[in-house]
């Protein structure tokens, strides 16, 4: 694990977010700041949380509270592709478990794990608001609905083509 430190780009992005809020409400930008950090590093280390805290002028523990409250923030490195499989009620009824099983067959990993080559991570998540298309999963920023083994094959095969 190399130490993370905010890049000038990230800092300027965070500063842009700060413009949205009154000067004495800098803490309002904490979620956006964490999102920016995560986009840069895929996960958020304690060191960089301290940096965010200093930048916003708020206590580090406050940043830590937010970062641990929301499950979208990662505290360990994840793969290039983060696959979030919804296992909440609608998706569960529509076969979320089979989706997870199929993903394990294809990638060799289960929820909370990352492939040895660091490409793919799988995460179990709660309802992502796409119940109408259950079962569903989210790959990085993209939603994939009405999943079947075939469509998962397609999605996985297509992964690298995006970059």
């Amino acid at each position, binding site marked *: 694990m190399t130490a993370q430190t905010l890049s000038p780009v990230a800092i300027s992005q965070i500063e842009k977010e700060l413009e949205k809020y009154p000067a004495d409400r800098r803490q309002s930008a904490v979620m956006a700041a964490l999102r920016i950090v995560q986009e840069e590093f895929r996960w958020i280390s*304690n060191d960089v*949380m*301290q940096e965010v805290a200093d930048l916003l002028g708020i*206590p*580090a*523990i*406050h940043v*830590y*509270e937010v970062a*641990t*409250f929301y499950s979208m923030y990662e505290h360990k490195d994840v793969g290039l592709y983060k696959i979030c499989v919804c296992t909440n009620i609608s998706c569960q009824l529509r076969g979320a478990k089979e989706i997870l099983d199929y993903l394990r067959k294809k990638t060799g990993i289960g929820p909370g794990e990352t492939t040895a080559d660091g490409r793919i991570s799988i995460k179990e998540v709660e309802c992502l608001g796409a119940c109408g298309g259950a079962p569903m999963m989210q790959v990085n920023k993209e939603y994939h609905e009405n999943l079947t083994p075939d469509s998962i094959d397609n999605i996985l095969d297509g992964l690298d083509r995006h970059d």
Partner: protein
Amino acid sequence: MVSIEINGQKIEAEAGSMLIRAADAAGIYIPRFCYHDKLSIAANCRMCLVEVENAPKPLPACATPITDGMKVETRSELARAAQKSTMEFLLINHPLDCPICDQGGECELQDLAVGYGKDVSRFSEGKRVVFDKNLGSLISTDMTRCIQCTRCVRFGQEIAGIMELGMVNRGEHSEIMTFMGQAVCSEMSGNVIDLCPVGALTSKPFRFKARSWEMQDHDGIAVHDTVGSNVTVQTLRGEVLRVLPRENEDINQEWLSDRDRFSYTAYKSEQRLTTPMLKINGEWKEADWQTALDNVSSKLKKIVDEYGADSIGALASPTATLEEFSLLAKLMRGLGSQNMDYRLRQQDFRADGAMSAPLLGDSIVSLECAKTVLLIGSNIRKEQPVLATRLRKAARKGASISAINSTKFDFAFPLQVNISVSPSSLVATLARLAVIVAAKKKVPTSGTVEDIAESCPANKELEGLADSLIEAGNDGQIIVGSMAQMDGNYSLLVALATIIGNISEVKFGRLEEGNAVAAWQASFLPFADRGTVGKNATEMLNPALKACLLFNIEPSLDCIAGNSALDALRETGMLIHIGCYRSEEIEELAHVMLPLASVFESDGTHVNCEGNMQSWKAAVHPQGEARPGWKILRVLANYLDLDGFNYTSSETVRDEASPLISTTKRTASMDVYAPVLVEQNRLACISHLPLYRIDPFTRRSQPLQQTLDNPPAAAGMHPDTLASMGIDDGITVELANGGGKIDISVYASTSIPLNCILLPTALQETAALGNANWLEVKSRA
């Protein structure tokens, strides 16, 4: 005001205020955990659910605003059922370890479980386990007991002003912790122990010492700062086991600084002096009181006869009691000497005749309503922690608080202007502010003030500060603090601050450590007697006196020029130590040691910065042969054949002390002197007194010594200053001034002005330096 009904009882309450407040005011108890009247409302425990007419379900009383005609039932079937269900939920994950829990007997959860809990839990699944956290030497944790009320978190955010504890993760995984397991470092941290409704946060020094119901409570007053916080001293079988805050809305509310809460841990130190001791042929021999006092009085008499009364003097700790100051002053004057002082860390006494008692100028409560506050030479958070919480409240209400210091401190409240300049520029900055204020108010200032202001050009910050002072007028407050007192230009700082206060019509306050106000009230000052002026703390040590009485001090740590003080005391023919402790240093220097009872073992009186006299009674018997100071001094005076020492109680001593003239009277303007400036090529020394090094007591409190407020001795310099001298951060250098030299490691900090060294005093490691306005970095090790 609207009228509502609670349990059929008609109550007048303020519309919009919370239901629980109105119920409390009417004496109707609603169970609660997260609600606390001094903290913001979290409404997360749900214990306070009550039935409100026309509401579809029970509502939390702590977060339900009052509306006209509201009808509330706190004990109806529905309310009870809701409260009982909440209790059942809270107990699901709470361990059943009351028999080994320090909170047992004073636990809000335990108490309420008796009324609202079930006999048997219906929850047969595994309880969650939360690992304990190491929060440092003061707070012990058993985090499995936490009920997530977040009182501790809110206390940090809202009262102490630094958020150290937070609730991380969520839902069933929520837990209270610090960022990356750091220890807490707030000087008010112990209050979370009282706030925690369960046994999750308890006192580490008190751990497993006693059950709350076995102990006896004694009313006491804390003596380490000028607040005079009210405390309850708890004892068991003649031993002090715990100190807790005692509620006093006008003074400390229900808070207590860690210093006042935990310093009791030193009262049974192994270094306590427990019998009178005489040095005979260089050897210490135990003696009985008669022999010891006989020895002291006959030698003192002889010295007075031989060398005159001016050859003797007394140096006392600023934390002595009013009674002790009074009798010591009376005893010295009885012998014909005016040489007495408690201002051991002050070096500039030029304003002595003109100075008035170190008072705030108004009540402590009034601080909360101040519109503008200017702190001069004060790190108020560490000097007067409880007052800092009041200032924080003022800041939250929109007060503009500013500081002019020689270091940038972290005040835990926002500052309008935060000026940090070298000690030499400090006077110029204040003089400039005085000139600006005078110009705005169209009154003349003296030429001297303008001369001093010369080197500090006017700037926007000072202009703005002047405006906000003038605008606040009587709602403004100037506070000159303890850092200023150690400055080489203290008289000048006080004089200029008085001028600024008088012209802008802002209240003027000057605060010192401990029980300094009592020393003034007891006239324990070299200039308090009209006519002759005696020697002050510095003069008594230079040149050495023939006989000197040390009252509970450790010279190398309590005197600003530690090394010079030792040199002088070595030459003192008769050194009498009346103190709680013995130490190598005292054993080397003194000729007689008389064991003094500590504040817990003696009656006493504290006079706070409002001039508020508060007395207490001894909570326990003195250790060994130790005796209360006022008794020792009374008997010593009898041995010395002095008149007027037939006191029968501490009260008779106290009542003799003349009342302070006026506590809110405006201080008259004082003369302005030419400043003492540090030579250009030298580094200015900024002395600061670490919070837990203030007196022999706190210095021996192990738990306090282990906190982060007691960092290892090191000298701070601005990184540019370090770079210009080619010194690396972290290396050891030799520091020297006229009086001595020391080896110490340096650290870089941008809070320190250029060409200055920030040096902690009252440390063994820095005591070997002499009087210190300047320092040279001698060699580079």
